């Protein structure tokens, strides 16, 4: 079938449009579209581009705040971080491609999110990755873990942006649908921000970067020329990343922008030339004419359909004034990049394209972008998981249980993953992976930007509202541990099918949990991403609203410590006893998927986080938050193989809750004896318990006079390293 054949309902269906959407399309257009126009509609009306199921709920997220310069709607969010600097950040998913081809899927995921950030005029200074895999023993799972990590490593390391943090978790619900979410933080001067707007009729449209091939065109198979069926069979469904070109794009685009040579700029991400051209025109209230014969191609005989929908990587679209076109092309040449003039901005709000001398398509912009379908999907609010009926948790073999916990995939040390990432390129990493949050200096300054990603999807499965709220609270605590105050959130909401009312209910509850917590804690959500349809054979993943949070340290004077030192005193700030509902102890040791996951106590969280951040900035304490696995796993994280601790908890406390309880906004603090008075004074009016001191090579916990746990630190510290030991081995 030819690209200019008339479309029909049947073809619309194959493009994923519902019959009502087809009717809506016909009404909006007032005529029957041709095939390329149908392809464009289906791309822009897809869930991915239009947010048709989520938009109504995303509105609940607080996007305002005194620091916010650009909220959701642009390529990335922008917040002011002091001294005229802004942080530009976003998180995005690349789940499905990574399941098909983990290496290229993850690599191009990193590439895409980098472009979203430097497109805004910001230099990327750090990347994080939030990963979810299935049962480590499930088929293909090691191959997937390995491929994803290599993909992130080879791409991120080559472009020279340090990967400084992230998370990794395992759960069988991801067996058929892994999650690869990548976050990038960039910095710019406040007056150096650029937007994806095609403004100024008469301006030129310049295509820059890699040539267009037939990569990742999702439409119906018949969309290719009929006599080219052999080629259709060979069409790659996965895109291949080229990090060298990406690196050159970063440098060249930043130089073009700093020289004031571009009016607007956007990368060609999902749906390639289609989304970049329509979205840029829409934001500016203008239109475009495109000469498709001018689009640089990698393969022969590409049709308008393929040109508009290709997802070849490392491509940008620039809007340039007529007088600057030559300068732009020359600067690109200096960086070894191709740039081509492919069209003009016009006043009329349409995109019109020509091909081989004739018209290819002409579409009005509003129906495709602003008036795309919106759905109020029916949803069923989830019932939070019932509280567990717990066995009597007395006089158990706490040491053995701790070891079982530490050896579980959920408590894995990600060291073998992040050791494959360049963490310090840029020479600005104060705290890299392995700590609660990363801390990176804005180049040439003492301003520290901190970042973390968090989401306990096990808890979100039990109670999407509280689980999501807790993810926000945990992120705040993680930032506090490196001394930072939160300034903004980006999110990546990974869920099953929105057409399933139960999944939709999880989605709504999770958004409300994030929204409420961010609103009360006054942290704006400035960018994000929704990934639906994460399911296989009707089986949805756990609801996974990954939270990426950025914080600021106005002036970094000390390196925050993640570990304790000999002779220090250990304190718990917050309740000594945690909650077992939704804890790793319940999940792993007792095999109970049960709640309740507690609600966030906003007042306490905020007070404690502020105080901890301040003490860390002053260099008074080393801090870590008490999350996955409870106090004992925090102790192991803070200790080292040759340096343990001796703690005493009150004889009448509930040992399981002290050792393994989670939630409630608790911190573990280590402090030099000389600084104890300062700590106690700073925490006045808050729950603060002194548990003991650092020393010896064992972790010893006493309840009153009775020893409840005594284990070799070397052994404990070694356990979380075991899971990924196979990564040390080599493979082809």
């Amino acid at each position, binding site marked *: 079938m030819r690209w200019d054949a008339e479309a029909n309902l049947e073809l619309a269906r194959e493009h994923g449009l519902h019959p009502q959407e087809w009717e809506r399309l016909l009404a909006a257009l007032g005529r029957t579209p041709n095939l390329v126009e149908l392809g464009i509609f289906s791309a822009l009306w897809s869930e991915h581009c239009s947010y048709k199921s989520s938009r109504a709920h995303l509105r609940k997220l607080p996007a305002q705040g005194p620091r916010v310069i650009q909220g959701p709607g642009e390529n990335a969010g922008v917040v002011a971080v002091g001294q005229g600097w802004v942080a530009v950040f976003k998180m995005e998913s690349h789940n499905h491609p990574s399941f098909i081809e983990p290496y290229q899927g993850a690599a191009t995921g990193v590439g895409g999110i980098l472009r979203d950030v430097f497109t805004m005029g910001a230099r990327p200074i750090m990347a994080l990755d939030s990963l979810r895999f299935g049962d480590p023993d499930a088929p293909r799972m090691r191959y997937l873990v390995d491929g994803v990590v290599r993909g992130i*490593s080879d791409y991120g390391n*080559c472009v020279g942006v340090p990967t400084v943090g992230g998370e990794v978790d395992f759960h069988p619900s991801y067996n058929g649908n892994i999650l690869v979410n990548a976050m990038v933080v960039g910095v710019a001067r406040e007056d150096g921000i650029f937007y994806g707007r095609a403004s100024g009729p008469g301006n030129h449209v310049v295509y820059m970067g890699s040539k267009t091939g037939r990569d990742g065109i999702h439409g119906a198979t018949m969309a290719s020329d009929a006599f080219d069926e052999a080629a259709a069979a060979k069409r790659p469904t996965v895109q291949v990343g*080229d990090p*060298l070109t990406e690196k050159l794009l970063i440098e060249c685009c930043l130089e073009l922008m700093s020289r004031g040579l571009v009016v607007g700029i956007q990368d060609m991400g999902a749906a390639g030339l289609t989304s970049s051209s329509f979205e840029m025109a829409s934001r500016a209230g203008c239109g475009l004419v495109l000469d498709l014969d001018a689009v640089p191609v990698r393969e022969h005989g590409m049709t308008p359909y393929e040109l508009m929908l290709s997802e070849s990587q490392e491509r940008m679209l620039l809007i340039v004034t007529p007088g600057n076109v030559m300068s732009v092309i020359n600067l690109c040449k200096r960086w070894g990049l191709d740039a081509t003039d492919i069209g003009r901005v016009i006043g009329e709000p349409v995109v019109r394209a020509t091909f081989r001398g004739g018209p290819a398509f002409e579409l009005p912009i509003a129906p495709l972008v602003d008036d795309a379908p919106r759905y109020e999907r029916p949803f069923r609010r989830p019932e939070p998981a019932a509280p567990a009926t717990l066995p009597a948790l007395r006089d158990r073999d706490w040491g053995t249980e701790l070891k079982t916990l530490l050896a579980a995939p959920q408590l894995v040390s990600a060291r073998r993953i992040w050791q494959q990432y360049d963490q310090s390129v840029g*020479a600005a*990493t104060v705290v890299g992976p392995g700590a609660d949050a990363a801390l990176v200096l804005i*180049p040439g300054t*003492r301003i520290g930007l901190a970042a973390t990603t968090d989401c306990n999807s096990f808890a979100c499965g039990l109670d999407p509202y509280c689980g999501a709220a807790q993810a926000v609270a945990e992120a705040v605590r993680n930032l506090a541990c490196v001394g930072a105050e939160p300034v903004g959130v980006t999110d990546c909401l990974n869920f099953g099918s929105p057409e399933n009312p139960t999944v939709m209910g999880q989605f709504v509850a999770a958004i409300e949990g994030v929204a409420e917590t961010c609103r009360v804690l006054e942290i704006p959500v400035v960018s994000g991403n929704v990934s639906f349809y994460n399911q296989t054979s009707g089986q949805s993943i756990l609801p996974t609203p990954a939270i990426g949070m950025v914080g600021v340290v106005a002036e970094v004077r000390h*390196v925050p410590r993640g570990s304790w030192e000999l002779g220090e005193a250990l304190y718990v700030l917050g309740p000594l006893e945690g909650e077992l509902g939704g804890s790793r102890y319940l999940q792993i040791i007792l095999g109970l998927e049960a709640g309740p996951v507690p609600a966030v106590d906003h007042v306490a969280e905020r007070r404690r986080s502020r105080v901890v951040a301040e003490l860390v900035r002053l260099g008074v304490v080393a801090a870590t938050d008490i999350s996955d696995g409870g106090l004992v796993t925090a102790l192991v994280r803070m200790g080292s193989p040759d340096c343990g601790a001796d703690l005493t908890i009150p004889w009448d406390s509930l040992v399981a809750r002290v050792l393994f309880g989670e939630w409630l906004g608790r911190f573990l603090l280590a402090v030099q004896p000389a600084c104890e008075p300062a700590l106690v004074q700073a925490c006045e009016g808050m729950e603060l318990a002194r548990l003991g001191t650092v020393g010896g090579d064992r972790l010893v916990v006493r309840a009153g006079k009775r020893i409840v746990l005594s284990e070799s630190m070397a052994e404990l510290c070694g356990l979380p390293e075991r899971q990924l030991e196979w990564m040390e081995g080599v493979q082809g």
Partner: protein
Amino acid sequence: MTDGGRRPRVAVVIFPGSNCDRDALAAVEAVGGEAVPVWHQSRDLQRCGAVLLPGGYSYGNYLRAGAMAAHSPVMKAVRRHADQGGAVLGICNGFQILLEIGLLPGAMLMNRSLRFICRDVHVRVERTDLPLLRTLQPGQVLRLPIAHKEGNWFAEPAVVREVEQQGAVALRYCDPSGQVRADANPNGSLQNVAGLVSREGTVLGMMPHPERRISRLLGGEDGWALMRALVEAA
């Protein structure tokens, strides 16, 4: 070569895909030099007294790390500079380029683990009587980060013997106490080689990144002296 109180000029070469160039420029300035960015297509070194080939992925490290950069126009000027006794420091990818153009012996294979490795290592300083190492103490142990996938130095046995006889090994991977041991070798490099120096001591190639370690806030100052030696040699 300081003339009239001016700071010594150090050329930092930028290839397409270099990614430690900005860090190198900043580090040269921080230790008192004047850092001069030099583009790979340049045919001269802009009156610089020393050259730094920074780390990164020149030409994406496609084909072999450093292979394509070795053919850049600027490398002719770098070779001439080296032949005339000028100082050249190659860090990581810069070291790989120096091997590819034969200014230092051997070649880099992929790390034994076949993976990229980024972590701190300890290296022992083997020579201090040469220009690019004279700011260091004999036997001094430095803690520096490595970040590479191809740092597994290889040469034929005869070449290895020659390298050892000449004392061309400048830095060796060691444990924190300075013992050169197999388990302190992160990548399988022969003789635990982390850095090689030319006979005259004016060309130095090393896998660890001294330019990332010149500040207490950023992991320590163990790279300071090496960067300083380069500036003094300019």
